[in-house]
């Protein structure tokens, strides 16, 4: 008895002793499904790559753990007039090679990010003119007011003008280049970490930047990043303690990870909305046994589809509870009035009746396109949908395919070659306007050719588009939210899309590691702490 007690005391002492010591610098090992393809921060607009770049590069702004915009390389900014923004740059910041950071670098980066070969053209509007006021002040002039100007500036990273010029990297590496770009293999950012070694697609080692301007919130000396594309292997590596963090954890393995003694899963809602869309524009569907007319043009058919799908069942069975059924085409975190909307109830009887009213008492056949390696359990969701629609008599021929083929087929270059599809969307601006404009706006708008480019089924309502245009220029947040609300109500009334859910973020994290989970799924290890 006393022996046990003394053991406990010893353990407690040891624990206190450990806690009292300054946390020694740790090596964090991290594995992701995706690869770090290039170190050039303007070439790949892809979340994993961007998250990695965020360790070594910084933008004028950043987003905090709750995705709120916070100052980064710009200490502060103001809008003296609606079409002019003024940014005050942080002083004393040095690039990893020791050069000081100044306004010239911002202006250079603004050019570079909009140059040929950049993948981040939409992050900085083409009409924005960057003017150097002094070494630490930059003005941005716009043709029209833009309340969401800086919404994507946290992923527009600032590069060193001199370094780029010295290394023949003034423009982002064009894909057709025949010589390797220096900037895609080397980095010179201002961020809290620097690259020690980089083997593209295999392994990247980050080490701490001792000269970083901020106060580190981590206790790391080094991050070893490895790509592990196979789900099972990634989970195995976490379970066996070979890595400290994995992203993502397949939903079916969450239970296994949570039950293991040395790791757990951090879960949270993601910003991506998964939804179904229908071809509402062709006079005859490409893939259907209904000839001479397009059943999806009939709102009753769309409503029937909507009501035939039981998202709650998909949540519990396919997503294992890790999804948030959604009434809107945008995640609730990104739109303040989301809670005003509720999803129409699952009602297969009503659906069947609607179908009968629309003239399809025995249903019909339709082909469905679905990716099978893009979203969480994408193909399984589609299969579930096929089963549910079968119950109201609609025979769905599922074509689940790898994303490479899927996107080549359904997107604009493929001629929107689909009748019924599943897609996921995260507004890159973190704002509803992007959703309303890109995926819910009418295609082929002569005034705005980019409207509705990702509106694969071409749901189209001019009234809706008018509201979208108003939303763009409205600067009053409350009024803007009301306009968005009106638009979304139209969208729901039209059953233009069938939003399903927001999938969940699931990171597998060793119990030795503390790291905040951010809803955009960016694994940001400069907030990570690891115990021995």
């Amino acid at each position: 008895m006393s022996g046990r007690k003394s053991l406990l005391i010893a353990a407690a002492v040891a624990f206190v002793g450990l806690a009292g010591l300054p946390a020694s610098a740790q090596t964090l090992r991290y594995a992701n499904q995706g690869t770090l393809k290039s170190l050039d921060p303007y070439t790949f607009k892809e979340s994993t790559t961007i998250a990695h770049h965020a360790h070594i590069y910084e933008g004028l702004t950043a987003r905090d753990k709750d995705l709120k915009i916070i100052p980064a390389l710009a200490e502060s900014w103001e809008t003296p007039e609606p079409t002019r923004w003024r940014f005050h740059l942080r002083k004393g910041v040095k690039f990893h090679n020791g050069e000081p950071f100044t306004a010239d670098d911002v202006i250079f980066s603004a050019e570079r990010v909009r140059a040929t070969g950049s993948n981040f053209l939409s992050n900085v509007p083409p009409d924005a003119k960057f003017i150097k006021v002094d070494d630490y002040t930059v003005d941005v002039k716009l043709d029209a007011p833009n309340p969401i100007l800086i919404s994507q500036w946290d992923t527009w990273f600032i590069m060193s003008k001199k370094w780029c010029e010295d290394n023949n990297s003034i423009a982002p590496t064009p894909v057709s280049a025949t010589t390797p770009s220096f900037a895609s293999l080397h980095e010179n950012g201002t961020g809290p970490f620097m690259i020690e070694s980089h083997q593209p697609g295999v392994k990247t080692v980050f080490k701490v930047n001792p000269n970083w301007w901020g106060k580190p919130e981590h206790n790391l000396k080094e991050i070893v990043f490895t790509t592990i594309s196979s789900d099972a292997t990634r989970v195995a590596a976490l379970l066996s303690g070979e890595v400290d963090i994995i992203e993502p954890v397949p939903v079916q393995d969450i239970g296994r990870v949570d039950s293991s003694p040395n790791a757990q899963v951090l879960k949270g809602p993601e910003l991506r909305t998964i939804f179904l869309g229908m071809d509402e524009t062709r006079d005859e569907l490409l893939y259907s046994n209904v000839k001479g007319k397009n059943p999806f043009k009939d709102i009753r058919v769309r409503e029937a589809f909507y009501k035939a799908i039981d998202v709650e069942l998909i949540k519990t069975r396919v997503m294992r509870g890790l999804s948030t059924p959604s009434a809107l085409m945008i995640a609730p975190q990104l739109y303040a009035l989301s809670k005003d909307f509720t999803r129409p109830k699952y009602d297969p009887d009503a659906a069947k009746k609607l179908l009968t009213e629309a003239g399809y008492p025995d249903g019909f056949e339709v082909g469905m396109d679905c990716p099978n390696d893009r979203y969480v359990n994408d193909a399984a969701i589609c299969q579930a949908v096929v089963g549910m629609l079968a119950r109201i008599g609609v025979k769905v021929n599922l074509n689940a395919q790898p994303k490479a083929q899927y996107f080549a087929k359904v997107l604009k270059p493929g001629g929107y070659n689909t009748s019924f599809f599943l897609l996921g969307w995260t507004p890159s601006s973190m704002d509803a306007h992007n959703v309303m404009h890109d995926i819910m706006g009418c295609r082929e708008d002569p005034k705005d050719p980019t409207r509705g480019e990702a509106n694969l089924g071409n749901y189209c309502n001019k009234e809706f588009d008018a509201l979208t245009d108003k939303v763009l220029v409205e600067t009053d947040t409350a009024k803007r939210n009301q306009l968005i609300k009106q638009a979304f109500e139209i969208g729901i009334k039209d059953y233009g899309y069938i939003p399903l859910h927001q999938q969940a973020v699931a990171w597998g994290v060793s119990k030795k590691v503390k790291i905040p989970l951010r809803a955009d799924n960016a694994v940001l290890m400069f907030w990570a702490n690891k115990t021995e």
Partner: protein
Amino acid sequence: MLAFTLRRAIQAIGVMIAVGIIAFAMFRFAGDPVSQLVAIDASSAERAQIRQSLGLDDPFIVQFGRYLFDAAQFKFGVSYQFRQPVSDLLKERMPATLELAVCATILALFFGIIMGVFSALRRDSLMAKLFQMVSLIGISLPTFLIGILLIYLFSVTLGWLPSFGRGDVVKLGWWSTGLLTLSGWKALIMPSITLGLFQMTLIMRLVRAEMLEVLRTDYIRFARARGLTTRAIHFGHALRNTLVPVITVVGLQFGSVIAFSIITEQVFQWPGMGLLFVQAVQNVDIPIMAAYLIMVSLIFVTINLVVDILYTVVDPRLRATISRPA
């Protein structure tokens, strides 16, 4: 001999060109590279510009001509995803694949021959039947499942072996090797078994069949009549004669070992060419896909040539036919 080597070399080049044509033709069906390069919300203007910069708008024949011209100089262009010359990427990844493939082949040869010889000499023994069953079970399950099961057993449950990667590598010039570190060896074990299992079965069955065939030949009977020891007959005469066709098959199979390493590399995240290729397929990285195929066929025709030459070393009868002008 020289003429023979030369002739085979010329044929090999023909093979490579054919591979190039097929490789190039099939990538047109692999998907749209552009949609893998840009975010889904990229405008069509952006996409069009990238298409053009990649030369994807040129007529097929123009694209092919350009590709062939560059490939002939071992210039495979720049990877769409990595923005790095494909030749550098391949050079970086090749050692991993070759080490894995060679290791798997050696493993397969070692156990395949032992088990094959054993089950030929002791045809009806329980052990021989056991070997056959075990080897068959090895090919009865898909590679990826075997890999996962191994990982589950040896990494997760027992914690003996690493579940992914190559361990620590040592650079010898441009060649990176995992054979000089303990962690490298440990990392090699499971992928080699996974990759070699199928080959082992094949070799075992082949050795068994050939050995049985050889044991029935007159010269083996004559060797017995000469009173040679069983050991000398089995391992001197029969085995050597058995190994002649085995060499060919192993050589031929080396190409498919490398091809099959695609799956093994993916399961174990082995940083070789196969993994690079899988990533390239997923991302429609055409330059990598094309270069990979050409590299693999280069390796293959080289091996083929080596096998042919080796064959003549082992079999004196062929040496005579080859050195004679055709």
